[in-house]
């Protein structure tokens, strides 16, 4: 066996709750395994213990035994284990520390003291597998998130580990990048490498794995083939189930359904398609998701152009956001989405083109003034936390603008479950809690427009559900919302309007189903229709056959 955990418990220093609690596991060579579970369930700790970082790098209390390819991780230091097991960490930026991609790939090989001819051989093999040949002379910090992820993977692959662990590799990838990484993982599996992949978005990878492990409070509570595990009672473990499985579960069909073909097969088994059709169409008739009642523009953009280092980023954007709309901004990494949202609150000033924010000219107002009307919630909540308590953190905006409404702020504390945390330091919170603080801080000033940057990235199911109910509430209250996301299932669920950017151009603007029906635009934008949409299309076909 390649990896074995024998009754492993681990406590991080100065904690009394185990991160791993009497953990047992055996992994055979060549297996591919998906590790799932809510945040804080012990997944990342498991990765660290699997390559010897626990106990050699992280102090704390470890009991039990971990064997990697037969080597006891307590007796063998990390530099003896790293030839057998490699880990691609969550944050690609923190693992790329060389000047070029090529230097990054050979770093581990140089440490191993290999001959130059062997280094060349491994470099060629890893760069082919991770599809890095066109990037070899680039500096890692100039690459996109998806490219960085591939470099981090390549840097581990050159070491030819028999066991490869990846901690949330799909988090920052766009749909094309996700598909690319899936292809690479399939190639690795065919090379006989054992894969252990940690991921919240189960549907991205579930069809490619042999086994799924479900973690809960430091224990592996379920394990087995994906279909067997997902057919069981797993609702308490905070898993983000594949969208079609959720759909069929809602209709009382407790079966693991991972793709559209399986969904169609299931539909054909039923004498009447009406309940399915009605259920699938339900979100579109939901009153809270109806078209906006108001025609009052919150933001108007006309022929906006933008460039960075001489390269065009936005090219002639025309756009009006109206009050009450919930808009999803979609497109590949590097399509210009982040640049565009920076114009919505004046962080970037238009040099060519016209922008009005609630009739204010951003050229004449500072960002601090415009922030009164438009709140941005960034992907990383750590970028804004600086106060000593959660209460002060949330009230920073209202006090700054002299717009403190105690009733509204108390409502927000309640809505975001912040009441028990108010006197705690925001630095000491979990990432999910910090995200809630940043949402509450953004809403505390009662902005006219809320902009969310990748709200679901790296979020587990409980946080995602919380976000879902929050967005529903806000839409019901008529709040104008725009969010940037790669999560099309989430975008289809919440937005009543999709904007698709491709190479700085707005190539599609309309209702989600209208946009998804335009296949050529979806391909141009690097997007793929949601499973629900594909099922609707299939259902229409089946109903025609029926009649």
């Amino acid at each position: 066996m390649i990896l074995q955990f024998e009754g492993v418990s681990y406590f991080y220093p100065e904690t009394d709750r185990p991160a791993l609690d009497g953990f047992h596991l055996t992994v055979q060579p060549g297996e591919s395994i998906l590790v799932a579970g809510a945040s804080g369930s012990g997944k990342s700790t498991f990765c660290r213990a699997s390559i010897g970082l626990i106990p050699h790098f992280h102090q704390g209390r470890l009991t039990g035994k971990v064997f990697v390819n037969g080597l006891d991780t307590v007796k063998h230091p990390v530099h003896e284990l790293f030839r057998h097991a490699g880990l691609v960490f969550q944050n690609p930026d923190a693992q790329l520390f060389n000047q070029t991609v090529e230097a990054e790939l050979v770093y581990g090989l140089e440490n191993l003291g290999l001959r130059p001819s062997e280094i060349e051989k491994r470099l060629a093999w890893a760069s082919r597998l991770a599809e890095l040949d066109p990037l070899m002379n680039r500096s890692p910090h100039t690459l996109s998130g998806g490219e960085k992820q591939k470099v981090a993977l390549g840097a581990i692959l050159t070491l030819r580990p028999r066991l490869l662990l990846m901690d949330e590799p799909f988090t920052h990838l766009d749909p094309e990048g996700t598909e690319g990484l899936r292809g690479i993982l399939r190639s690795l599996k065919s090379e006989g490498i054992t894969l252990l992949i940690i991921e919240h978005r189960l549907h991205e990878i579930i069809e490619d794995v042999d086994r799924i492990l479900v973690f809960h409070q430091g224990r592996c509570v379920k394990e087995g083939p994906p279909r067997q595990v997902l057919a069981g009672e797993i609702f308490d473990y905070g898993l983000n189930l594949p969208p079609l499985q959720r759909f069929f579960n809602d209709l009382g069909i407790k079966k693991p359904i991972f793709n559209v073909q399986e969904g169609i097969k299931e539909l054909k088994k039923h004498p009447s398609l009406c309940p399915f059709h009605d259920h699938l169409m339900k979100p579109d008739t939901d009153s809270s998701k109806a078209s906006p009642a108001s025609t009052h523009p919150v933001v108007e953009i006309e022929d906006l152009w933008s460039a960075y280092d001489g390269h065009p980023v936005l090219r002639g954007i025309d756009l009006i956001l109206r009050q009450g709309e919930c808009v999803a901004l979609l497109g590949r990494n590097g399509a210009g989405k982040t640049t565009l949202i920076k114009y919505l609150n004046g962080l970037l000033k238009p040099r060519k083109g016209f922008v009005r924010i609630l009739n204010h000219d951003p050229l004449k107002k500072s960002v601090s003034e415009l922030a009164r009307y438009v709140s941005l919630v960034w992907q990383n909540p750590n970028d804004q936390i600086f106060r000593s308590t959660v209460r002060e953190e949330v009230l920073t905006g209202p006090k700054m603008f002299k717009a403190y409404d105690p009733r509204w702020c108390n409502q927000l504390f309640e809505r975001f479950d912040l009441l028990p945390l108010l006197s705690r330091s925001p630095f000491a919170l979990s990432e999910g809690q910090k995200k809630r603080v940043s949402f509450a801080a953004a809403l505390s000033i009662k902005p006219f427009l809320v902009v969310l940057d990748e709200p679901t990235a790296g979020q587990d199911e409980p946080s995602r559900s919380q976000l879902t109910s929050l967005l529903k509430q806000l839409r019901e209250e008529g709040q104008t919302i725009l969010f940037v996301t790669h999560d099309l299932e989430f975008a289809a669920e919440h937005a009543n309007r999709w904007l698709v950017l491709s190479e700085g151009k707005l190539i599609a603007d309309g209702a989600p189903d209208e946009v998804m029906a335009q296949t050529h635009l979806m391909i141009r934008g690097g997007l793929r229709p949601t499973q629900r949409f594909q099922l609707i299309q299939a259902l229409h076909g089946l109903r025609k056959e029926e009649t």
Partner: protein
Amino acid sequence: MKRSLLDPRSKLVLFGVATLILMAFSHPLFLLTSTGILILLVCLLRLFRTWVLFLKGLAFPVLTFFLIAWVAFDFETGWVSGLRLFTIGTVFFTFFQTTSPEDLSNGLLKMGCPYPFAFVMSASMQFIPFLIRRAQNIRDAQRSRGVPIDGGWRSIFYLPAFAGPLLVQSFKFADELAEAMEARGFGISGRRFRYEPRFRWFDWVVLGFSLLGLAVGLMIRFLSSQP
């Protein structure tokens, strides 16, 4: 990055000697001639456009240096001091434009420098752009919620809003980085480089001329300072 034919060690000595000589002499004619030679070198290495961009950053310290020396001494001392800083800045620019951090750390290792020191030096050069990007993100995030750190004197009161997150993230980042480096065998003995710097005949020539130039320069400087 322009790769040079010279070994990083001989280049380090050459540019070190050039810096010392520029610091040792303050004759306006010498400095003007040096400036001409350096500009020619920059053009020959096809670095002119990058150099012009670099000058935007160098302009402020050069001007400050010039003004301080002018006010403290006289106009000639002022412009000579400014020009000296300008030439030394150009020497450093040329060195770092033609020497990658890896080459530099490999060269330092060959000169007997401890590996952790050489690595930290090259890695920190790599992380400056990363920290600049993080700082920009934090600034944008705080400005987006109305914290007035757009510039101006009021920004000083909100320094914690900028420095707090940056410090916390830098520590976290350093921790993650150390973990990733450990997982790829940082610091184990027997490291072997893919490209070992090799001293060739022209490196010896450059080294010889550099040392000769330094000796002659110091002698002239010493003799010219005699009464």
